[in-house]
């Protein structure tokens, strides 16, 4: 009987710790914030910073595509379109108006997964329009023999320090 209780208790513990780990996911992740400019159907990279948090997921809509490469292998790809902004408003006469506006020039940002020493490639309708190397020195220590709260605090301090070095 006691063994059943112990087994049940351990199962509850494993499940709760797993759920906790999933919920807390973004604390232990880094992403690259790409600062980009769009003009005349082309995109230029103005800069990038390493930030703490979750990168954006893989998006599938848009004529433009961003790829992150590490060791010449594509580790992330996502679509986007910086050229169109949709605007909509419902009027008094129950009519919706607005429409899609084509943009000539605009600064925008993408957050992609952080990798050390990688490349970014951007395509417009399959045609390469941008290729840039980046080098992110990550020194975040992810495993130390301390308590959970200490570990989180150390991680935050390390990321802050790293951000300070990059910027």
């Amino acid at each position: 009987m006691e063994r059943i209780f112990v087994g049940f208790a351990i199962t509850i513990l494993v499940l709760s710790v797993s759920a906790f780990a999933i919920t807390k996911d973004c604390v232990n992740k880094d992403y690259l914030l790409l600062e980009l400019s769009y003009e005349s159907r082309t995109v230029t990279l103005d800069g990038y910073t390493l930030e703490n948090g979750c990168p954006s997921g893989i998006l599938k809509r848009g004529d433009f595509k961003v790829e992150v490469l590490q060791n010449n292998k594509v580790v992330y790809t996502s679509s986007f379109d910086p050229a169109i902004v949709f605007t909509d408003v419902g009027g008094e006469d129950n009519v919706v108006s607005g429409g899609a506006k084509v943009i000539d020039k605009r600064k925008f940002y993408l957050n992609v997964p952080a990798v050390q020493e990688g490349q970014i490639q951007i395509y417009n309708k399959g045609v390469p329009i941008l290729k840039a190397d980046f080098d992110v020195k990550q020194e975040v220590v992810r495993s130390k023999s301390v308590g959970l709260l200490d570990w989180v605090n150390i991680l935050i301090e390390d990321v802050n320090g790293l951000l300070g070095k990059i910027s």
Partner: protein
Amino acid sequence: MFHINKVQILVIIIFAVSLFFILKINQDNIEYSKGNIDCNTVYQGKNAKVNVVFLPYGYGDEKRFYEDVDSYVNGEFGFKNVEPFKSNFESFSFYDIVSENIKCDVTDNTFICDDLSAKRAAANCPNDYIIVLYDRDAIRDLIVPIRSSAYLNLASINTADHRLVVLHEFAHIYGGLADEYVEEGIDIDIDRFQNCDVKTCPRWSHFTNAGCFEGCGEINFYRSIDNGIMRNYILGREFGIWNEYLLALPLQS
């Protein structure tokens, strides 16, 4: 009176530790390295493939923001009750973050938020799409109506507009759907917007319940539903079978 052995103590300790983690989850707080920004889970889909983060702008009251988010997710015109999101609700997770760092602007009567500040705040949660809610007074909006907008993966929403405006803007950024109302001076690229077609509507002619109505962005193009959410979210209550198919398509792969 009570005799507790070592095994019972062990069980109690394990339960206590489990309780600690469960309470931590319920707090739903994710500490952020640049401040105390919390990621709150509104709904976690069992097979979540798409993460949507709500952010506030112009709210004086956090409670009101949470109520609005709940309405846009679980309300009559929310994701939970409108197809195809209703049938695929478990494929979505929704989060909200109370941040005062979101920068937005109203330009040419259009509400549009700065994607840098929105992306930085949203990074505290799993994020694919970001929806910023602007708490705008309905009477003020009646006098000067402000447009909602959608750009990249960011929707900037005027909450004074009809509740379905969120799903309309989401269909732009997530589904790549075009507006189905006709606006003068707007040219649309028929190749990139699958919800519009040429006369006779060959794209969806094999869908028995889909129609073919004149006007989709431009007067020369055609749409699959007379008054769907992409044409008129005040009168329309559904996307229509073809648009529902297009919106559900990314969830299949």
